[in-house]
């Protein structure tokens, strides 16, 4: 029972964090056709910006300004970098973001050093909120939950209930038509890229102190984010949400389950001492995202909710 409750809570939080990260990537991809390899780097920038801003002011100011700053960096990258490269086709764009990811990595190492920085949970949120089956549940986790849900609601509202959202949705599928109607499509692209990066930055701000803020965080998060986007279906926010939750839950549940292959397939005559039988479900947890990626591409190449083939 306690395993289920905890896995559920942790899985949902991890899933929401993943969604926050991948929502920006999905938006950018569906609009511009650019698979942004540097996306996880913006997540890292968010965490480092928040750490620096927190050093001189406090967490709440960092929570607002760090994502804005990351968004501005993203918009600048789009305006002065990607837009020029765009003329040379998708491969050039892909390579551009690939190089950018390494560039940001190195810049972060130069500015903040190669080691983890002491980016802490704010004191006001650093207390156990409740105790469940003997384990404390940190208040900060619930805070992550709240921020993620708020972001989710805001994103949904903007995209579905405002005029700006309408134009963005239109530009996703028919950029030329939107341009002919008199909208400044490059500016829409820049805004979307900026907002996408800002979302990754926000994930960095609240995820950086929940996990660890070090120069390796982008490299570690990068592949998982791609899995979410591909499994969810390229360009589908709903799909990304489903995939993120699925991934978060499956990973935490797998860790929580105390069983081995022998327990599951014992009826087939698999013994617990054999090589295969002694593999535990928990040890498979980190493999799950990539297993999902491979399976989805084989069975349903457009992803859970995607509307186009990869």
């Amino acid at each position: 029972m306690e395993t289920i409750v905890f896995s559920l809570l942790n899985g949902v939080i991890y899933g929401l964090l993943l969604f926050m990260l991948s929502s920006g990537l999905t938006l950018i991809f569906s609009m511009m056709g650019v698979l942004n390899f540097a996306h996880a780097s913006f997540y890292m920038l968010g965490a480092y910006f928040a750490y620096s801003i927190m050093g001189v002011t406090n967490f709440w100011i960092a929570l607002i300004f760090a994502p804005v700053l990351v968004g501005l960096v993203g918009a600048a990258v789009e305006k002065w970098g990607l837009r020029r490269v765009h003329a040379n086709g998708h491969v050039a764009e892909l390579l551009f973001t690939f190089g950018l990811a390494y560039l940001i990595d190195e810049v972060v190492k130069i500015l903040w050093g190669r080691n983890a920085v002491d980016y802490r949970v704010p004191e006001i949120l650093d207390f156990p909120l409740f105790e469940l089956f003997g384990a404390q549940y940190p208040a900060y986790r619930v805070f992550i939950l709240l921020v993620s849900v708020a972001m989710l609601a805001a994103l949904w509202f903007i995209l579905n209930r405002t005029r700006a959202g309408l134009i963005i949705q239109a530009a996703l599928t028919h950029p030329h038509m939107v341009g002919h109607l008199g909208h400044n499509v490059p500016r829409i692209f820049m805004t979307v890229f900026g907002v996408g990066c800002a979302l990754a930055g926000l994930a960095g701000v609240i995820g950086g102190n929940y996990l660890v803020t070090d120069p390796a965080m982008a490299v570690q998060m990068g592949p998982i984010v791609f899995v979410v986007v591909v499994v969810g279906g390229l360009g589908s926010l709903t799909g990304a949400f489903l995939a993120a939750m699925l991934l978060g839950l499956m990973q935490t549940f797998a860790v929580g389950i105390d069983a081995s292959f022998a327990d599951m397939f014992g009826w087939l005559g698999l013994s617990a001492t054999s090589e295969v039988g002694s593999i535990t479900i928990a040890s498979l947890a980190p493999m799950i995202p990539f297993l999902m990626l491979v399976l989805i591409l084989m069975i349903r190449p457009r992803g859970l909710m995607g509307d186009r083939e990869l």
Partner: protein
Amino acid sequence: MKLVKSAALAAAMGFAAMGASAETVKIAFIDPLSGPFGPTGDAGFKQFKHAAAEVNAAGGMNGVDLEIVPFDNKVSPKESLVQLQKAIDRGIRFIAQGNGSSVASAIIDAVNKHNKRNPGDEILFLNYAAVDPAFTNEKCSFWHFRFDSHVAMKMSAATDWIADRDEIEKVYVIGQDYSFGKAVADAAVGQLAEKRSDIEIVGNELHPLGRVKDFTPYIQKIISSDADAVITGNWGADMVLLVKAAIDSGLEAPILTYYGGSLGAATAMGEAAVGQVRQISEFVENYPTTDAQIARIEDFEETYPENDYYFHRVYNAVHFLDRAAEKAGSNDPVGIAFAMEGMTHDGPYGKVTMRAEDHQVLQDLFVSTFSADVKRDVEDTGLGWTATDAARIAASETAPPTTCEMDRPSR
């Protein structure tokens, strides 16, 4: 045309001769210098450079300066072999590596093979941190010297500590899923059964190396198992994240670590870990020692303000190499290897011996405690590691017999 050719040949030979005459003795440092374990490897590299500078200041190795050449292996055994070949091609005869027993295992095999095929061109492997017991037991090699106490030796310090505490009845073992983590788990289970058969192992878990971002699910399993003590061999990011999750979830049981002093761990642990996290190591920053050692620590931390003095064994390795070269009267790896066998050194933390039978270092170990009341802190946290004499375990007590049957070359 012929003239040009021979001129080119002469020039090439001239270059080759220059390379071979080598004004320095080079040690290839093959360890991760990027990625999740990059900071750990980088810290080791800095200590090697510092130790080499010390030897050079005292006149070098038989009058020749030492030079440490970094090679990034990304903790991958495959990549390490590529880097090892690069080092050999550059004429480097000494290899230093520590992070990852999987890597060390591959290097030992490659070094054995190389030395068999290239008599007269042997290379030596100085292992400063890879602690799979096999390397000085069934897999022992004449060309490998280990300057860190291996898993079972460190575990005997940890299990002694647990055996002395009657209130500990349930122990949870968690580690990284590769040869090292498995060795830790086996040593813990085996030794606890021997020393305190009443202790129940309530969990024995392996997680993937360097891939887990949030250890909370693992910690919650530990909490619901009612463990009274946790043993972990984790290092690098895995250590930092594990302890961080433990503290956030309010795990109260003491955590016995091999590498609690890993770079970044102190920062992540903070005040909450004081008195709870322990480390088994050959070096404790706040343990009383000689003035010379304090001067060395201060000099290191002044030279590399980003790092704390941590790998004391690196100095042992470099000084053993230097003294063995002096004893052998040459910088040839074979002579040095013979000279190093059985060599002893009165270090600032007790006597250090290189056991001749298996090339395993024997040294005193400490079970140190993370404390707020320290003179020397780590990572500017105001917190650091202390140990009392009671927490010191003599080298003789940590030294298990070896099963090594070493194949020695003829002199």
